[in-house]
């Protein structure tokens, strides 16, 4: 019994240790945002007089709200669009499978292994010629396509868990395909769909490669906002930290609020 207790204690210490090491850079960034530029480069210290100077400077110089709104629009817009496409797609794969369904799923997932930079040139040219460069719509499309394989895959596994009988009973009761999806499939797999959506929102929010390459100002999201502080003003640590903190704060709060949902959806089946 004592063996077990001490083992548990060590495991807890280890877990906390790893967590702190991983979290420390973010914590440090958070603190640095409240320092003056001079204090930021001075000998590292936990004790300093906090100031909002850097935040003020950042907000004064750039339009934080515009970047944030872009991020929100693109993360939520692309996720909604991806779900809209993926739900019927996963429905047909889960409930009307063909011998090639499994292969198609694997192929879809395998496209995620292609390095994005490999297709930057063609996509850039297409966007330039269709006027999608630096537009919200353009990035929404890119994020939708970027997340679609994962979203379809996840929805497929959740839908697969739903007993087929229930949908068949619905069909006997007179439900057409769309009614089957709206009245039975969606409510029954809602936890799974929600966690899939949350993941897609987080992935889109954090995406930096496409946003940096395909936007300049009008459609730039928060990832571009951080980047704009890093290159010309790389030495101004306090301002950079303040900007980064402001960029990740919304998604951190969002993730914190929805963590229960996220974990439940990702660990258990959809209907239990």
């Amino acid at each position, binding site marked *: 019994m004592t063996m077990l207790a001490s083992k548990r204690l060590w495991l807890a210490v280890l877990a906390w240790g790893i967590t702190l090491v991983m979290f420390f850079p973010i914590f440090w960034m958070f603190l640095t945002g409240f320092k003056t530029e001079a204090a930021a480069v001075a000998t590292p210290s936990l004790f300093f007089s906090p100031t909002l100077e850097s935040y003020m400077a950042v907000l004064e110089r750039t339009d934080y709200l515009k970047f944030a709104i872009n991020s929100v629009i693109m993360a939520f817009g692309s996720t909604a669009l991806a779900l809209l496409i993926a739900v019927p797609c996963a429905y047909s794969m889960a409930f009307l499978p063909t011998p090639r369904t499994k292969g198609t799923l694997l192929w879809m997932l395998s496209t995620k292994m292609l390095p994005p930079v490999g297709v930057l040139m063609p996509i850039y040219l297409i966007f330039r010629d269709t006027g999608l460069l630096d537009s919200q719509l353009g990035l929404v499309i890119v994020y939708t396509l970027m997340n679609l394989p994962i979203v379809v895959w996840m929805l497929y596994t959740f839908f697969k868990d739903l*007993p087929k*009988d*229930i949908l*068949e*009973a*619905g*069909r*006997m*009761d*007179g*439900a057409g395909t769309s*009614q089957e999806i709206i*009245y*039975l499939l969606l*409510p*029954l797999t809602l936890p799974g769909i929600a966690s899939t959506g949350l993941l897609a929102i987080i992935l889109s929010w954090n995406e930096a490669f496409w946003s940096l390459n395909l936007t300049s100002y009008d459609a730039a999201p928060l990832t571009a906002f951080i980047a704009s502080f890093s290159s010309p003003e790389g030495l101004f640590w306090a301002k950079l930290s303040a900007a980064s903190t402001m960029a990740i704060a919304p998604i951190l709060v969002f993730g914190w609020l929805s963590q229960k949902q996220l974990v439940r959806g990702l660990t258990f089946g959809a*209907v239990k």
Partner: protein
Amino acid sequence: MATLQLKQVVKEFGDARVIKGVDLEVHDREFVVFVGPSGCGKSTLLRMIAGLESTSSGDIVIDGERINEVAPADRGLAMVFQSYALYPHMTVEDNMGFSLRLAGVAKAQRREKVLAAARILQLEPLLDRKPKALSGGQRQRVAIGRAIVRNPSIFLFDEPLSNLDAALRVKMRIELARLHDELDATMIYVTHDQIEAMTMADKIVVLQNGLVEQVGSPMELYHHPRNLFVAGFIGSPKMNFLEVRVIGAGPDGVTIELPSGATCEVPVAGEGLAAGSTLTLGIRPEHLYESEQAVVEGEIVVIERLGGETCLYLQAGDDSMTVVTDGDVAHRVHDKVSLAFEPRRAHLFDAEGDALPSLHRHPLAAMKRGENRASSSPTPDDQ
């Protein structure tokens, strides 16, 4: 009115032929049971009737109309699934009223119809519960209630009782039979349990390997099985089979010699059978009785006492035999018993396993479960 005909119905899954040409006639208000061993295609056939499975070839006809391409909901059928398949996120009331809601029936009317069905099944106190909060038997009743609300011309049941415990199964069996009388509906019921088939059916369809082996009333199947498979499948404990030798055949029956050396004349049509050829004799455990005659002799290997009756398992030469006898017999294991049977109770099967036709029809063979009720109960006008 609801009749159903299957005409040379075939189902193929890829290369596998699962239903191999089934012909069947279901009459109005009949209780038809599909029975057969696991994997014989019972569920598949039922799902083809329901429209949940397409038909590879052949015709499915309801009330004279070919409905192969009609959508499941438009066939006027309702199905009760083995797993109940209730909608877990809806209350009992919403489960039962879902079809009406899809059909655009107003809320008040919907409630009225759901209540009517709930009353038949004593579900009224449960209407606000979700399926999760119900026992297995209650879920089963909700599933049946959901079917009743649709007011179908034919009810389809796929092993609806197999998830219930033995006592509840018996209770629901009786309730279903009562429901059949009350609703005056045509019902098709799938089971692998021959007791359910015997007790509930007007007509039993014995399936094996995607083919119909025999169609008939329970008593017809019991007394006049067409082949070895049906003979072995219907009846519990299973019919005993012995190899016997033909001595002679005449207009009154076939005379055979049993392994014990005893001879008897079984009243079946076998004229032209050569003396010396071998047949299979079938005799049900409940038709063997103890007798000095010693047509069969054996040693008791196992005794199962059920109280009301006792099963003796015998070793008779190379054959194992089962005997159902009185509950109060005093035998012990290793006792020797000698048995006899009435020749008219025996069945003979040829080398292909087909029964030689009996010369006498059993008087109950044509009786249907509901028939005595229909003919004997006076109509209200008589009073």
